[in-house]
């Protein structure tokens, strides 16, 4: 009977291991599968097409050019390599102000025909209309070639405008730099503080202080991130704004401060545990050789605990990069490539959290967000691999 129970427990443990492994794999496959569809989508919003007069020599336009044209920043075809002719923008809704409902026929059957007329009579026109109503093969109309979203549009693009019409821009560089900047500064703040507190707790503080302080610090990890975010927005942002004499308080630096506070409990707790595992014999040996307390900490305890400290730092970094809610609330979320840490930035997790809810399911925006998730996954994976290499290398040296 006892053997049977042992076997059963062993089996259950194995099963739970396998299930966890498969789940992780499935999530990754799902992430990449949903995201990869992006590069099969065309640059113009799904279901829509762009039409020009057939006498127009332009065959295709890049998403940036389209954005500038529809924003009114490019006003002449000359600027995109065409003839010297003013650009006339035509959106689908305008058809209803040109023709009455009666003229457009029952169930709007005559829309394609009327659209054709409009395009044919305006040589400088560019019309952005649903594919369904595009008059194909009719005289005087040319459809612009729709290109697929390229790898470089996504990975090297400098503008993130996912709901721009007619062509959304999915350049992830601002988001990527935003994420890296916020996390990097957060880590710069959190590592010295965290490791310092860990050393204090493990080596210097007396038992009573330690017993009081450690649970208090670990309690910090239990505070929901929204609460941190709200604290950051209401308390930290105005302080940063006033002390730096800045235009606004929602900056990358504010986000880093909050992230540093949030990463501290993880770093302190794990690093302190690592420091305390140094065998008493080693400490005693060091002291017996005439080293004082500080020399012992510096030369014996920290090197011994270095892999544990590295693990603490990596977990802290992981927390910082993946943190969503707090950052979403305090960094201002402006999607521009940051030039200093006192500018507003938009991070990858914040973008996903803020936009996925409203993105039409299965559309290009949705896919772009999933791909962002995949990018984030690759970043954290790289960090853990690097950390693994660093800590194992140190072990070999010893």
């Amino acid at each position: 009977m006892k053997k049977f129970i042992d076997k059963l427990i062993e089996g259950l443990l194995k099963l739970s291991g396998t299930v966890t492994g498969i789940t992780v794999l499935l999530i990754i496959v799902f992430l990449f599968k949903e995201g990869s569809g992006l590069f099969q989508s065309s640059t113009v919003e799904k279901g829509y097409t762009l039409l020009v007069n057939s006498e127009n020599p332009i065959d295709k336009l890049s998403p940036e050019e389209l954005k500038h044209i529809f924003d009114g920043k490019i006003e002449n075809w000359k600027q995109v390599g065409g003839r010297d002719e003013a650009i006339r923008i035509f959106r689908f809704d305008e058809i209803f102000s040109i023709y009455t409902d009666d003229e457009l026929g029952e169930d709007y059957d005559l829309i394609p025909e009327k659209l054709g007329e409009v395009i044919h009579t305006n040589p400088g026109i560019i019309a952005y209309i649903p594919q369904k109503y595009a008059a194909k093969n009719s005289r005087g109309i040319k459809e612009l070639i729709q290109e697929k979203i390229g790898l470089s549009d996504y990975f090297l693009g400098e503008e993130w405008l996912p709901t721009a019409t007619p062509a959304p821009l999915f350049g992830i560089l601002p988001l990527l730099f935003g994420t890296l900047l916020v996390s990097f500064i957060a880590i710069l703040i959190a590592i010295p503080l965290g490791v310092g507190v860990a050393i204090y707790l493990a080596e210097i503080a007396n038992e009573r202080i330690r017993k009081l302080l450690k649970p208090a610090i670990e309690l910090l990890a239990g505070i929901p991130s929204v609460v941190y975010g709200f604290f950051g927005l209401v308390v930290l942002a105005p302080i940063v704004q006033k002390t730096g004499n800045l235009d606004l308080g929602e900056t990358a630096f504010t986000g880093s401060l909050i992230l540093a506070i949030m990463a501290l409990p993880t770093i302190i707790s794990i690093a302190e545990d690592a420091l305390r595992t140094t065998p008493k014999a080693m400490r005693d040996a060091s002291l017996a050789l005439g080293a004082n307390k500080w020399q012992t900490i510096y030369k014996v305890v920290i090197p011994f605990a270095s892999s544990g400290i590295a693990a603490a730092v990596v977990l802290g970094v992981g927390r910082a990069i993946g943190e969503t809610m707090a950052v979403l609330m305090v960094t201002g979320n402006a999607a521009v490539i940051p030039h200093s840490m006192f500018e507003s930035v938009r991070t990858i997790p914040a973008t996903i959290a803020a936009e996925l809810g409203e993105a039409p399911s299965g559309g290009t925006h949705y896919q772009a967000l999933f791909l962002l998730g995949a990018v984030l996954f690759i970043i954290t994976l790289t960090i853990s691999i690097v950390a693994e290499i660093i800590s194992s290398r140190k072990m070999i040296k010893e």
Partner: protein
Amino acid sequence: MKKLILALSIISIAFGCNTANKKETVTIKGSDTVLPLTQKEMEAYQKKHSEAAISVTGGGSGVGIAALLSGTTDIAQSSRKIKFDEKLKLEESGKEVHEVLIAYDALSIVVHPDNQVSRLTREQLEDIFTGKITNWKEVGGEDLKIIPYARETSSGTYEFFKESVLKDKNYMNGILSMPATGGIIQSISQTKGAIGYVGFAYVNNKVKDIHVSYDNGKTYIEPTVENVKNESYPIVRPLFYYYTNLHETGKSFIDFILSSEGQKVVSKVGYITLNK
């Protein structure tokens, strides 16, 4: 063993309740703007029909319509008109979409209370949010950088503002965006050069609302209940329910919202009733 039996019985009771309730539950999902309205309407409705089970969740207009497509909600609440390709997708899967206009919501343009500027034209607003005007002194204020705040790129409010005020032009590159209306109010109240837009019902004394002109500065209209009702305030958007097929409870709930009693709830929540 006793605990096990207890746990099992609790589970079975829970499941039992579930199946019993499932029969007539109406699920409503979607826009966070419409959410508080739907909740209050539901409370009022259930006072009269205590047997009706309605469950309401937010998540965003896009989420609601996506759920309609996958059949996981009965009604999608939306603060924007259904998009063309969403409609197309629903039609492709053989579902006919019905649209019900339930109320209107006005958007107020708000600034920091210390800001001297108290009126702007639509053209000025367009230039501010597209990045052409960058200093308050260009619109009659003090020498201070303008910091425009927008809602998140895919919220219904963002899209509506873009359509109505920016005339479909894109927002300036790198505009600050906040995930929620509360965040915008908070940020504007502590940033001197800030400007943003929020739902009419959210304006409080921490921010100042701007009088808006849609006729090139001839008349400036303040966003007040009267001005919205007599249609002189221009930045007003419709709020919708979308459904494909609906059973009796759902239909009677929608009828209730459209009734004079339901419309009373609309104005109590701070939105604008249909018969303006």
